[in-house]
């Protein structure tokens, strides 16, 4: 059924259709609307049986999900940014224990300086934790990926993180095609746990493992993620059969077949990137787009195949490995068959900075003209940076950086546009 709803409401409804049994809620922008909506549904008796637990921290949220999942319940929670970092120890633990929890991450920057706006630094900080990580391009894909996530998680006994851009998707009203309960039920069977805390068949879960077997446990986690590389496209196909629309999968290619330059990106920015590419195509420029839907496991083969004929690759990413460069860029480089100096990283949109078509035209044009630097910070205000550096040269007690920058800008609130 077609609906015009907020992204968070769409995801909440999709989660409800997946018949979750334990939902852990802790507020943090921009995911809060999702758990609010689910809480209302539980209180209204629309989700029976389902326990909605208002926990005291994100660390507790993931811990409650761990206990519930290990007891055979379908468990869900949502978080973002600082919340994801605060639960990090339990995030790794859930993966290590092999518990199929599904979590929405409404992507948001990480402080300091505190910033509530969108980038991908939060989810990408957890890229090696053992969770599957799926990135939604729009709200339709966000809700679809959640349905696929439960299926994937439970089949593999691994937790799955569905990442959707904070505010840009979570708070945007878009048209979505909401599936029926019957469709979801036919796609997602009831949860059959591989391990369960059951007095009738007692097991110990979470024993200490030393050097004699730790490597094997870790290898199995890696092998399972490799298995997911086959399951994800297969279930995206099945999803298309049941729901009548393509959604999910490992990567999305757009106008890449004859492209000299391919832009790689994840999340909602793909919309702007495709618009820009369409405009450049109209001017006869051979440029295409590779959208990464599945970031973990990293779809190395699919990425390599998609980039095979590209002369240059531009990785546009909303994240930064401080002291190194691009996180996505680094992953793409490892999968690019050509010379690594043909992969350019463009860091963009940090802390909610707008990524405009004008700016994209500029960097993509530079890539086509072979003049793009290996690492670019899109729309960086160099003069502002230089003023801080000058102040630090001049004064030992140069003061807090972020506050100094705001003073230089002459504004009290962060500039969004």
């Amino acid at each position, binding site marked *: 059924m077609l609906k015009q709803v907020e992204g968070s409401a769409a995801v909440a409804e999709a989660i409800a259709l997946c018949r979750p049994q334990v939902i852990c809620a802790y507020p943090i922008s921009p995911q809060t609307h999702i758990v609010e909506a689910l809480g209302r549904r539980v209180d209204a008796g629309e989700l029976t049986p389902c*326990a909605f637990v208002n926990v005291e921290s994100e660390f507790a949220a993931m811990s409650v999900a761990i206990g519930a999942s290990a*007891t055979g319940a379908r468990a869900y929670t949502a978080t973002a940014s600082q919340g994801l970092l605060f639960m990090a*120890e339990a995030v790794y633990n859930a993966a290590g224990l092999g518990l199929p929890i599904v979590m929405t991450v409404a992507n948001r920057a990480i402080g300091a300086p505190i910033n509530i706006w969108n980038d991908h630094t939060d989810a990408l900080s957890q890229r090696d934790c053992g969770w599957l990580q799926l990135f939604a391009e729009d709200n339709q894909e966000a809700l679809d990926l959640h349905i696929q996530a439960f299926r994937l998680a439970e089949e593999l006994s691994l937790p799955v993180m569905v990442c959707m851009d904070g505010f840009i998707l979570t708070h945007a009203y878009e048209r979505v095609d909401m599936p029926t309960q019957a469709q979801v039920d036919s796609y997602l069977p009831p949860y059959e746990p591989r391990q369960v805390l059951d007095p009738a068949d007692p097991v110990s879960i979470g024993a*200490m493992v030393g050097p004699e077997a730790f490597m094997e446990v870790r290898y199995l986690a890696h092998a399972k993620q490799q298995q997911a590389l086959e399951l994800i496209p297969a279930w995206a196909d099945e999803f298309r059969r049941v729901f009548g629309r393509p959604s999910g999968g490992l990567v999305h290619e757009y106008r890449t077949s004859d492209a000299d330059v391919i832009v790689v990106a994840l999340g909602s920015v793909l919309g702007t990137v495709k618009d820009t590419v369409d405009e450049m195509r109209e001017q006869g420029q051979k440029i295409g787009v590779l959208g990464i839907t599945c970031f973990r496991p990293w779809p190395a083969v699919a990425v390599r195949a998609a980039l095979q004929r590209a002369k240059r690759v531009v990785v546009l990413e909303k994240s930064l490995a401080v002291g190194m460069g691009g996180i996505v860029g680094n992953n793409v480089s490892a999968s690019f068959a050509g010379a690594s100096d043909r992969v350019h990283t463009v860091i963009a949109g940090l802390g909610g900075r707008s990524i405009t078509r004008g700016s994209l035209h500029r960097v993509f044009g530079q890539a086509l003209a072979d003049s793009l630097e290996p690492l670019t910070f899109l729309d960086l205000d160099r003069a502002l940076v230089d003023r801080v550096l000058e102040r630090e040269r001049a004064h030992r007690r140069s003061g807090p950086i972020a506050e100094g920058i705001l003073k230089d800008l002459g504004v009290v609130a962060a500039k969004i546009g």
Partner: protein
Amino acid sequence: MSYQPIRFYQTGTFTVGNRLLTEEQRSVQSGRERTNSLNSGHRACQGCGEALGARYAIDAAMAATNRQLVAANATGCLEVFSTPYPETSWQIPWIHSLFGNAAAVGTGIAAALQVQGKRDVRVVAQGGDGGTTDIGFGCLSGMFERNDDVLYICYDNEAYMNTGVQRSSATPPTARTNTTMPVGESTGARFGQGKNLPLIAMAHEIPYVATATVAELRDLEAKVRRAMEFRGARYIHVLVPCPLGWGHGSAETIKMARLAHETGLFPVFEAEHGEVKHVSKIRRQLPVEDYLKPQTRFAHLFKPPGHADLVARIQALADRNVKRFGLVDHAEEAT
């Protein structure tokens, strides 16, 4: 006419042994139905108070729930010595997740059981004092506040023993640990610090809070059974001496626990819905020196020239407990 009243102190203490008791009065541990939930073969130190306390507590919980029990365990000695891969001593469904989240994992288990309609299956979460009073305190307080249907048992040996004896917020004043060494001007752990978790638990007004020691294992069993009669959040704080960390003989664990109670340093009581309902009386309060002297963690207090002032302050703490909880029946003493 003067007379000497005769008191039978043994009456009601169950020290007469199980053979002379009725079936229902016998301890779980002496019964044929004992479940050995924490089975033999684990790797606890000789004289480990925690292993003893956990065995009695969990077997009692098993008896009280007709063996329908699931346990969540914090990281710590109990977890490490009971589950070295690929072995486990646990005969019950048991999960270890992290150091600081046992209470929250317990909440999750209870929530899952509730939605599955398994009302007869009950949940225990357990940890040491570090996992309870320090790193797990946030999750524990959250579980209390929501009144989740979990019995949390803290086995308190008054320091981080698993990592090699460091101070926790349950370490008593003047105790020597590896992070409160009595060197230079320092006299061990400071006065005026630390948490009283049973009282904090009571402040949450949860249905049931109790303290116990491994000196009165029958009492511990009875408190676990009583706890299982309630729904909602319950808390039992068990004092479990640690020969390694306290520096007493491994055969003196129970003696140390008994002295902690009889000096008044560790009040043993039960509380329901925030009110103390019962205290285990002390027949004759012993001086704190009796408890402190056998433990090397307090040895610096008695090395010449000694710290009589500090011992007096510890005595004052014990006396305050006696007064606060009414541990000594003074009227009886006067007769």
